[in-house]
């Protein structure tokens, strides 16, 4: 199997989706630019033409509404937001419209729309160019939310999102774009709502999202070597629907639970996962659940502050140790 970059895996998925289904089109800021979205769209406009791969004015709500409307007319748009921060402008269309349309009209109409939002944090970009707002999306009925962490999943989840028939938020991180992994050439799906065990372990369950899966694995290796703590690392891949069973069965084994999500702590993804564990996995729990997240503060610019703002494997190691000590 070919080993390719995360960004190339997305490119491949888009290529194959555009090739296979004439109703698929790619729309959003930067999709025709060689650099704007990290090389993920390279070559697409040349191959599929300006009718099916096109850039838009910066009119996030209008463009999102247009993508929703096209989906209502049977198209399958992939709508890109080069940063989640810009998405607030489009919340009305995403939530009041895309997410509601199927339910509100009794299941008669559907919105087969993929909203691809890129987390682009760090690099001294500060508070308006760094946000991860998956928790808000997860809160909305009618939106599915996926967060791939490997090139394999990047491709397979994109295919699933585009062919799902519902509005699906596909959230990925620029920090993953250069990572490499095996990716089958043919088109395949990674099912929405199925998580995966990235590393088996018996002492503590660490559930991590997106880029933080890599940090969790790094932490697990270090903990195994230095502390003889055997960490099970779970990647839910899709946070809505969520593979609750996978979480609970791991917890049953380990009795300890740490959730890692690089977004604001209060009301974050970690809160929901902790709540699930504290209600449905209570009998397995041997220690307090723990969260690794961003502090409740906007992202600062100075890299000195960024270093303490963003959690790493070290932050995870510390939390796991606290949890296991108990």
């Amino acid at each position, binding site marked *: 199997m070919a080993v390719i970059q995360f960004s190339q895996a997305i490119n491949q998925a888009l290529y194959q989706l555009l090739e296979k289904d004439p109703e698929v*089109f790619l729309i959003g800021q930067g999709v025709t630019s060689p650099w704007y979205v990290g090389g993920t769209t390279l070559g697409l406009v040349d191959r599929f033409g300006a*009718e*099916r791969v096109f850039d*838009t*004015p910066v*009119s996030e*709500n*209008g*463009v*999102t*509404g*247009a*993508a*929703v*409307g*096209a*989906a*209502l*007319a*049977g*198209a399958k748009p992939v709508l890109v937001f080069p940063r989640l921060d810009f998405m607030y402008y489009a919340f*009305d*269309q995403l939530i*009041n*419209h895309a997410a509601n*349309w*199927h*339910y*509100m*009209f*009794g*299941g*008669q*109409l*559907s919105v087969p729309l993929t909203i691809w939002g890129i987390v682009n944090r760090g690099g001294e970009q500060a508070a308006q160019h760094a946000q991860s707002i998956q928790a808000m999306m997860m809160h909305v*009925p*009618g939106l*599915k939310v996926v967060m791939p962490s490997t090139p394999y999943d990047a491709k397979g989840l994109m295919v699933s999102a585009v*062919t*799902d*028939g*519902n509005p699906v938020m596909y959230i990925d991180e620029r920090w993953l774009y250069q990572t490499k992994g095996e990716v089958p050439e043919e088109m395949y799906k990674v099912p929405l709502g199925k998580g995966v065990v990235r590393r088996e372990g018996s002492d503590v369950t660490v559930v991590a999202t997106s880029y933080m899966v890599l940090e969790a694995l790094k932490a697990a290796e270090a903990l195994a070597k230095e502390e003889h703590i055997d960490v099970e690392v779970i990647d839910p891949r899709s946070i809505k629907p969520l593979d609750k069973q996978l979480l609970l069965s791991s917890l049953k084994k380990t009795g300890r639970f740490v959730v890692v999500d690089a977004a604001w702590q209060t009301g974050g993804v970690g809160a929901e996962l902790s709540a699930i564990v504290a209600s449905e996995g209570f009998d397995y729990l041997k220690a307090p659940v723990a969260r690794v997240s961003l502090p409740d503060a906007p992202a600062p610019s100075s890299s000195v502050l960024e270093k303490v703002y963003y959690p790493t494997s070290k932050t995870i190691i510390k939390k796991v140790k606290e949890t296991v000590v108990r």
Partner: protein
Amino acid sequence: MQKKAEKQRQSSSPQDILKQLYRTMLRIRLFEEKTAELVQKNEILCPSHLYIGQEAVATGVSASLRKDDYVFSTHRSHGHYIAKGGDLNALMAELYGKVTGCSRGRGGSMHLSSPEVGFIGSSAIVAGSIPLAVGAALAFSLRKQDRVSVAFFGDGAVNEGTWYESMNIAGLRKLPVIFVCENNLYSTHMPVSECLADTDIHRKAETFGMSGYRIDGNNVIEVYETAKKAIDAARRGEGPALIECMTYRWRGHVGPNYDIEKGLRSKEELDEWIAKCPIDRLEKQLLQQGLLTASEIQRIRSELKKAVDDSAVYAKKSPYPDEKTLLDNVFKES
């Protein structure tokens, strides 16, 4: 019924069109008067924004639309739904919150849909469905279809940034979408002059590279002719247009009352507009030109009245949605 109407429209003489316009306006009026009555009786519970007074707009525009053209609407959507050919029984059942409703009892008055006749839904967010209409037109245009999409909205929608973004995207890509503004002089309790720095809404069109018209929205023939021109042009790929229809809602913002008692507008103003009733106006013309006789009109009226009354009977005896379906259709099953 709808099929027949459609055929009629396509191959119809000017006289037939006039009669058809009259029937549609009257159907809306009678339906809305019934709705008002049922709201007053607490038979209908959901907030209903009545279309009485504005019938010429939906009617005149929809007369040139095909079934596979799309219409998107607002909180005030009964008239748009009916004019596009939506079923009366399903509409009334929706107002009653019944499972036989056009949105299965999930949407209520503000969220009607009838995909089979190209009525794709109404949003209760001001300006919310306008970009959707643009998007449907985008899909049509990408597929090189000769279909057209229509966004109905009020003067209030012109306050929202989304309206401008939609106008710009449509103008930029020359999409087959018609923006129909029903300027009824008020956005809830706010007169349009307290909302817009410049109340000549139609003039904004040219700053988005499209034609803008301001017309008498109570003259159904003028609406029909202007809309036909714009729709035909859009169908030929000549791009979008904005039609500002000056009109007036007789009732208050929501529900059957008149907003006079609340002091939100004057009785004189209302009376002036009632005198400009779009239906009376066409009726007079039809009588004068001998296209319909008084007794024919009587017959049409009672036929339509019966259909409306029947819809209320149908709605009332229809079952409610089953509680167990509450969580169905949050997502489409694949």
